[in-house]
Every structure is written in structure tokens, then in C-alpha cells.
């Protein structure tokens, strides 16, 4: 998110900041108001959700969340405790399940992809170009294509309903993107370093482990964040392989809550906010890496 132009905060628009001059012109109140308006449009939905989730009783179903501002001390944490611990698929349990799904589904593919990316970047073998082109093509294949046969396969292996099914499915679905991002990054590393390691007698395994992996940390991190958010926020794969029982992840539990007509909005909003919490923290603290991954060609 940080722009290279971040020099000094304040009214840089009026100061002679040379890089800023590049744009179309300078900020005036019309533009500032327009941006403010857009920002409000983007923020108000989430603010409304949050305020509703802390309103006591069934206030949420009686009048609009904006009336809360008239009496801002009327707040409670009760909705959160209900959402976390009550009901058939409490969000607390779903949170644990989501962690159990997302962490392995993020970590397992990375290393496998890193080895493959190394081979694609620094080794020569027949069929290299065509194989990589197939991987590029697979980037855009929708997950839905693989779901039915995969569930049949997992059933035959006796794995149905296990976390392992989601790990394996996400490893498969995420692999082309992982190889693609990592290979593009490795291709930008200075070749001279690798050549000199070779001259010093380092094997490919050593070069990979001692040189390339440490140098690729930014790309590894950006893919990790990307994959983590993707898996955490995924509904379809979790719904197909884990369903709505005691292995519900947060998105599945939330979808279940929404389909359940008896739930008041105060519980729904609290539940939704809980599903958003971890991704928002991950995202806000690691935004830079995430954006790098995105610009590296994430078409998923």
C-alpha cells in the first residue's frame, strides 16, 4: 500500500514535491470530497455491521443501527459470547476448525512449490517449457471442475469428512499459482550468485536450501498470505468436503447461520465480524506482502 512517494505527511499536495507533480494535477476540495464520499461508501457497511453486533437485546431488529449514536453507551458483548459458544455450530468451534484447515493448507504447498519453481528456474530438462505453459493454463481453471471426482476419490480412500481432504484439495488448487509466483520471483534473482555457488561445488540441493530459499522469502511470504486468506475465506471447498457438522469452518458456519431464519441480526452480525477478524488482522499487518503477491500475477 505504501507509495514510493511517502515523503513527509501533511499538505504535500501544495508543497513542491516533485514526484507528486506527475499526476494530473493537485488536490482540491472537490477531489477530497469525492474521495471522502467513496471512502464512506466503502466503510459504512462494515461500521453498520460492527455497531449492530454490540447493540444489546433485540435492538438490532427494532430500529436502525444508526439510532445507536443517540445512546452510544448502550453496548454489550453478549452477542459475541452467544455467537462464539451457542448454537449447533458455534463460531468458537468453527474458528478452531478454520485454523486447522487453513494453516496446513497454506504451509504444505509452499515447500513443494518452491522445489518445483527452483527446477523450472535453474535446471534444464526436456519438456520444461511445455510443462510450465500447462501450469500457466491451469491458473485459470475453476475449482468446481475438480470437486466431484475428488470427493469420489476421497470417499474411496475413506477420507471423507476429514480435514486432510481440504488440505489436499487446496494444495492441488493452489499449486499452479504457487509455482507460478515463486518461479517468476526466482527468475528475477541474480544468476551470478547461483553460478558462483555452482563453481564452488554446491549441489542443487544445497544451492536451493542455503541460497534460493532465504533469497525468496518475500515471494514465499506473499504466497503464504495469499493462500491463507484464500483458504480461510473459501466457502465452496469446505462446504463440499467438510460440510456443516462439527467440522464446519467459519464460512460454512456463517452461511448456516444466515440460512437459519430464527437468528436475530445481532447474532448474525457478531458471527460475521468474528469470521472477518483474523483475516483483517493478517491483512492489515502484512498488507505489503499481500499486494506484492497480487501484482505478481495472482489470477485465482
Amino acid at each position: 500500500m505504501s507509495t514510493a512517494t511517502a515523503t513527509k505527511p501533511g499538505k504535500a499536495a501544495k508543497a513542491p514535491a516533485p514526484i507528486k507533480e506527475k499526476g494530473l494535477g493537485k488536490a482540491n476540495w472537490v477531489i477530497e470530497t469525492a474521495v471522502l464520499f467513496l471512502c464512506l461508501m466503502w466503510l459504512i457497511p462494515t461500521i453498520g455491521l460492527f455497531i449492530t453486533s454490540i447493540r444489546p437485546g433485540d435492538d438490532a431488529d427494532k430500529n436502525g443501527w444508526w439510532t445507536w449514536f443517540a445512546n452510544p453507551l448502550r453496548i454489550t458483548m453478549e452477542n459475541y459470547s452467544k455467537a462464539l459458544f451457542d448454537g449447533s455450530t458455534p463460531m468458537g468451534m468453527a474458528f478452531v476448525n478454520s485454523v486447522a484447515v487453513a494453516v496446513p493448507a497454506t504451509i504444505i504447498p509452499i515447500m513443494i512449490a518452491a522445489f518445483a519453481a527452483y527446477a523450472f528456474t535453474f535446471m534444464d530438462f526436456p519438456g520444461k517449457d511445455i510443462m510450465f505453459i500447462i501450469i500457466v493454463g491451469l491458473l485459470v481453471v475453476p475449482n468446481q471442475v475438480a470437486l466431484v471426482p475428488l470427493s469420489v476419490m476421497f470417499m474411496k480412500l475413506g477420507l471423507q469428512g476429514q480435514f486432510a481432504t481440504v488440505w489436499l484439495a487446496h494444495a492441488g488448487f493452489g499449486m499452479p499459482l504457487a509455482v507460478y509466483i515463486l518461479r517468476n520471483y526466482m527468475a528475477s534473482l541474480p544468476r551470478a550468485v547461483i553460478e558462483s555457488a555452482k563453481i564452488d561445488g554446491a549441489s542443487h540441493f544445497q544451492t536451493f536450501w542455503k541460497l534460493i530459499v532465504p533469497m525468496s522469502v518475500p515471494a514465499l511470504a506473499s504466497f503464504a498470505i495469499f493462500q491463507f486468506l484464500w483458504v480461510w475465506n473459501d466457502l465452496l471447498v469446505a462446504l463440499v468436503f467438510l460440510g456443516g457438522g462439527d467440522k464446519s469452518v467459519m464460512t460454512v458456519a456463517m452461511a448456516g447461520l444466515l440460512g437459519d431464519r430464527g437468528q436475530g441480526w445481532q447474532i448474525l452480525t457478531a458471527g460475521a465480524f468474528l469470521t472477518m477478524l483474523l483475516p483483517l488482522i493478517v491483512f492489515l499487518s502484512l498488507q505489503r506482502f499481500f499486494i506484492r503477491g497480487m501484482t505478481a500475477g495472482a489470477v485465482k
Partner: protein
Amino acid sequence: MGALNVLYALLAVVVGVLGALALYWILNKLVEMLPAKQEEAVKPFAFLLPALAVITVFLVYPAIMTIINSLRSDDSTEWVGAKNFVRIFTNAPFLSALVNNLLWIIIVPATVVALGLLVAVLADRLSPTKEKVAKSVIFMPMAISMVGASTIWKFIYAYKPAGTDQIGLLNAIVVGFGGQPQTWLQYQTLKFNTLLLMIVYIWTQVGYSMVLLSAAIKGVPEETVEAGRIDGASEVAIFFRIIVPQAWPTVITVFITVLIGVMKVFDIVYVMTNGNYDTDVIGNAFFNALYSEADAGKASAIVLVLMVAILPIMVYQVRQFRAQEANR
């Protein structure tokens, strides 16, 4: 139960990572036992094997099976020829889902690009601090799941009968201007409810579009803009004739990425209407064919329609990649 699940996951991480490491180590040792010449030839495949295996087993093989299943009966046991395709293409609800998907494709990617460009250009003219804050705000929904975003917007579209207090922002605004509250998600005139679902998708994606386009705009060389100014071009002309053409490759990238996402859209429709009130799309029709109807043949045929629709994009992507590589 919960603690057990966490333990299970931790174990999987440890076993998965150590197992993978051990696998590579063993593969590496095995390959090193070969004569030097063969070692060089075989080693790349030792590095590639696990990744290729994962892709083949969990992506390519199931995709091929889907093609085969689309020609088979609902439990994939008998060959039925093109019957599944005849069934879906003579089924009015599915055709309507196709039309809806087409509307998503026409409206959403273009809107996301246009709004992203607008925010990028406007924010570019603010002070660096304000620009940063504004961009973070617009980008934030990217982190929210489609299910979370759907909850947020379902609440905005919420309906209470006329005469009672409205709790949904949209109806509150309508009533505030003297209108009648509507059950928006059932409001089918001009496919308005589909449009309301699209807004959720747009809301989550503009941030992505903005970040990429903003980087592209900042990368436009100063001299070209200056030259335009000296020639007396207006700000609008500079934007459309100088900046946009140079940022065009990024515009295409964003457009295609959003397009692919929109073609397989599922979560929003499933959570907000489950395809009712004439809002169905291919992704949701697939899910319902699979689960409500337990018809693997129909589900496979539906997903194949999606795949065929994505094929041109795949060809384009591969071409783009080759052009890029040629310039590397």
C-alpha cells in the same frame, strides 16, 4: 474436540513439512547415487515430482474425470451421451442462470476497473498520508470473505414492513425519501436483485483493481504527461490519451482477473438468495445439481459449460505469458 482438532492440524503441519523435507532429501540422495551424467538428467524430476504429482492427482485427473462424467448418468455409472447437455440447455432455470452470468460478466469487471481507476486517479492527487488512508479503506474488503461481505450487504438490504422502523440502510433511505420499503432481494424488475448481488462483489474487488491500477498510473513516465501539457492538452485528454493507454496492460490484467472470478461466482448467490427469485448463476446451479439433486452427470455438464467459457481466457493467458517470456 476443539483442542483435538488443533492438535491434529499441528501434527499435520509438522508431519507434512518434515515428510516433504524427508521426501526431497531421500529423492536427492537416491539421485546422487546415479552416475554423474544421469544424475544431471534425473535431478530436475526429483525436484518436480511432488508438485507435478499434486497437480496431476488433485487437479488434472479430476478435471478429466469431470469431462467423462458429463457424458454419464447421475451416479456416473452409465454412458448417456450428450443427454446431460441436452437436459441443461433445455432447462429454463439453467438458461436463466446463463443469462444472469452473462450480465455479471458484462457489468462487474468493467465497473470494477472503472471504479478502481477512478479511486486510483483521485487518490493520486491527495497528500501521501490521505492517499494511504483512502487506499487502505477501499482495499480493506479484499480481506473479507464473500460470506462475510454477503452478511454485511444482506443487512443493508434488510426489509421491515412499511410503518415499522427500517433496520436496513437501503430501505431506510428509500423510506426517508417518502418511498415504500421493498424486499430488495426479491425485486426482479429489470433484474434489480441480481444487480444488488453484483454490488457486493464490486465492493470487495475495487480495492484490488485500485492497487494495481494505481501502481500502473504512477509508473507512467513524467515526460509523456509533460509533453501533453506543453501541447496544450486538457487534463481529461491527458488522462484518456496519455495515461490510460500506457496503463492499458494493467487494465487488461485486472479485467481478466475479475472476469474469471465473476464467471465462477458462487458464495454471494448461495448465501444471499441461493439462486431464488431469478438470481441463479452457473456456480450456484452446479452446487445445487450436485447437492440438492445429487446428479453428478448434470453437475459435471454444468461445470463443463463453465470450463468451455473460460477456455478462451486460458488461451489468452498462455499467449500473454509467452510474449512476456520473449521479452525477459
